[in-house]
């Protein structure tokens, strides 16, 4: 094999006698991560969404736009579609387009050369697992394939074969007990209080201000002038050649979400004390923080900074915006603490202590400032007599890409070639083989 230059696949695994670098695909609801097995970080991180302009005439073809940069550009009538919901593929055609975009041609010219490992959530239904296998062999034409549970990948990458994986994703927060390298399905729990919900809480806070804060994103603004704090801003809007065709609500929301993401990273913070001690009055005395929106409008955020994140632990505190109702009832939805309890209820008493002392925290949402410390305090207060210990990488990338990292190392091990589902095995046994091979 030619020496792998920068960006080339490391010759780390043997397959069928030749050394061929395997590829890794870690699809999430918000972003899809892809790269070479053996590498710690994905080479590609792209939006899991795609832009779509429906055909103008009957029988015509619609237009697809993939990768952030192409979705970001304003195009009249372009909708933004989300092929995955709750970590699960709902729109196979869309997901296949996104996955292919993540891999070809940046990582390889064709998928027929390299074995491919794909990660999936613990709750992926059997039907979907088989469908993914089928897609890989029939449509992507991969020579070998493996489907790995992302919680198991994350557990292994943290040196744990027995643990509780808490994944704070975009669509949800999930808790998956892993025991001797296998997920315990009965103990797997999730709640829709992930990053998307926090985004919605931020928006609700913005909408509550009088007047409501304008979330017009950067890409629609031409010029803005500096304005004093809390003074109205009057940005000049950009003009587009297809101005007469309005942009869609789904596209606008997608662009605004990137802005809200920035707000989450810089302003939102987790309150440290366990549920029950949260007090807005007390927090109102803390120094507020200034944030400037793309329009130029800038304002202070005080106790709201904490209240937004507190709702993951106490959903009854959720801010309600009648114009943008929550997709669940905050009175009955389970908090993060509650789903840990639910999860432990579902597993053997003997295993409970072992996993509480080994909690692995991953997912982009766990990067909310102060999150892991709060989780530690919350769980320790729920289980005062048991040792609770959280393992969360200090490196943001290792947490965001924990599934990728685990899958990447696993697939690069010299011994892993025995586990791949080969093309021959697929031809012989069909997609059902995934249930037997990929536990």
């Amino acid at each position, binding site marked *: 094999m030619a020496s792998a230059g920068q960006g080339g696949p490391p010759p780390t695994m043997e397959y069928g006698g030749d050394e061929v670098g395997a590829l890794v695909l870690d699809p999430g609801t918000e972003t899809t991560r892809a790269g070479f097995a053996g590498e710690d970080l994905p080479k590609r991180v792209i939006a899991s969404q795609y832009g779509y302009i429906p055909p103008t005439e009957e029988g015509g073809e619609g237009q697809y736009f993939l990768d952030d940069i192409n979705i970001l550009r304003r195009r009249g009538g372009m909708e933004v579609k989300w092929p995955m919901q709750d970590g699960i593929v709902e729109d196979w055609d869309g997901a296949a387009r996104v996955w292919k975009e993540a891999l070809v041609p940046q990582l390889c010219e064709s998928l027929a050369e390299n074995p491919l490992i794909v990660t999936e959530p613990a709750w992926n239904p059997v039907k979907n697992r088989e469908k993914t296998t089928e897609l890989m062999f029939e449509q992507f034409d991969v020579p070998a394939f493996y489907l790995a549970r992302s919680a*198991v990948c994350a*557990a*292994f990458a943290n040196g744990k*074969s027995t643990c509780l994986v808490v994944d704070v994703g975009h669509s949800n927060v999930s808790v998956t007990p892993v025991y001797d*390298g296998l997920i315990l399905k009965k103990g797997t729990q999730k709640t829709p209080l992930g990053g998307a919900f926090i985004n919605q809480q931020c928006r609700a806070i913005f909408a509550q201000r009088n007047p409501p804060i304008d979330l017009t994103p950067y890409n629609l603004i031409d010029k803005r002038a500096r304005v004093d704090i809390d003074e109205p801003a009057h940005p000049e809007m950009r003009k587009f050649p297809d101005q007469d065709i309005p942009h869609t609500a789904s596209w606008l929301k997608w662009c605004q979400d990137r802005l809200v993401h920035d707000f989450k990273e810089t302003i939102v913070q987790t309150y440290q004390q366990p549920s029950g001690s949260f007090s807005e009055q007390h927090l109102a005395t803390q120094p507020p923080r200034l944030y400037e929106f793309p329009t130029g409008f800038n304002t202070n955020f005080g106790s709201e900074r904490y209240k937004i994140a507190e709702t993951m632990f106490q959903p009854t505190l959720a801010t309600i915006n009648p114009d943008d109702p929550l997709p669940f009832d905050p009175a009955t939805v389970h908090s993060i603490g509650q789903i840990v309890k639910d999860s432990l209820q579902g597993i053997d008493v003997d295993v409970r202590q*072992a996993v509480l002392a080994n909690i692995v925290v991953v997912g982009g949402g766990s990067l909310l400032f102060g999150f892991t410390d709060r989780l530690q305090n919350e769980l320790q207060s729920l289980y005062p007599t048991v040792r609770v210990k959280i*393992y969360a990488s200090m490196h943001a990338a290792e947490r965001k890409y924990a599934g990728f990292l685990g899958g990447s190392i696993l697939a690069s091990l*010299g*011994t892993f070639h*025995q586990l791949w589902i080969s093309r021959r095995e697929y031809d012989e046994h069909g997609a059902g083989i995934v249930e037997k091979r990929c536990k």
Partner: protein
Amino acid sequence: MSRSGVGLDKECVPAFEDLKLGRDKSTKFIIFKLSDDKKSIIVEKKGTEPDYDSFTAALPENDCRYAVYDFEYDLVSGEGKRQKLCFFTWSPDDAPVRSKMVYASSKDALRRALNGIHADVQGSDFSEVAYETVLEKVSKGQGSK
């Protein structure tokens, strides 16, 4: 086969059986490691030192290992001694992520082959494999030093 495809060297189980059945009176603990070619788990060391500290001293500070220790303790009730075999997965925080990955994903190859283990300990720092911590776990609060 393990989750990683890593296998077990043929020496591993006999070494464990000798320890379990007391055929090898001098051995108190066994340390297992991954072979240099990373294809199988091999016996690294049979420890003869009777004190527990020699055992923990044999665990590397920044790499992973598996181990079996023949744990002996007195019952608080004074009803005599108990002996329990304890399995350790040693994965210190400072170990390279690759090493953590291989050991965690290959554990079942070894663990499933060993019958008669009473307790499983996952250690990521020395406090987690300290005598008191393990005693508490193994004896469920019924043991004293």
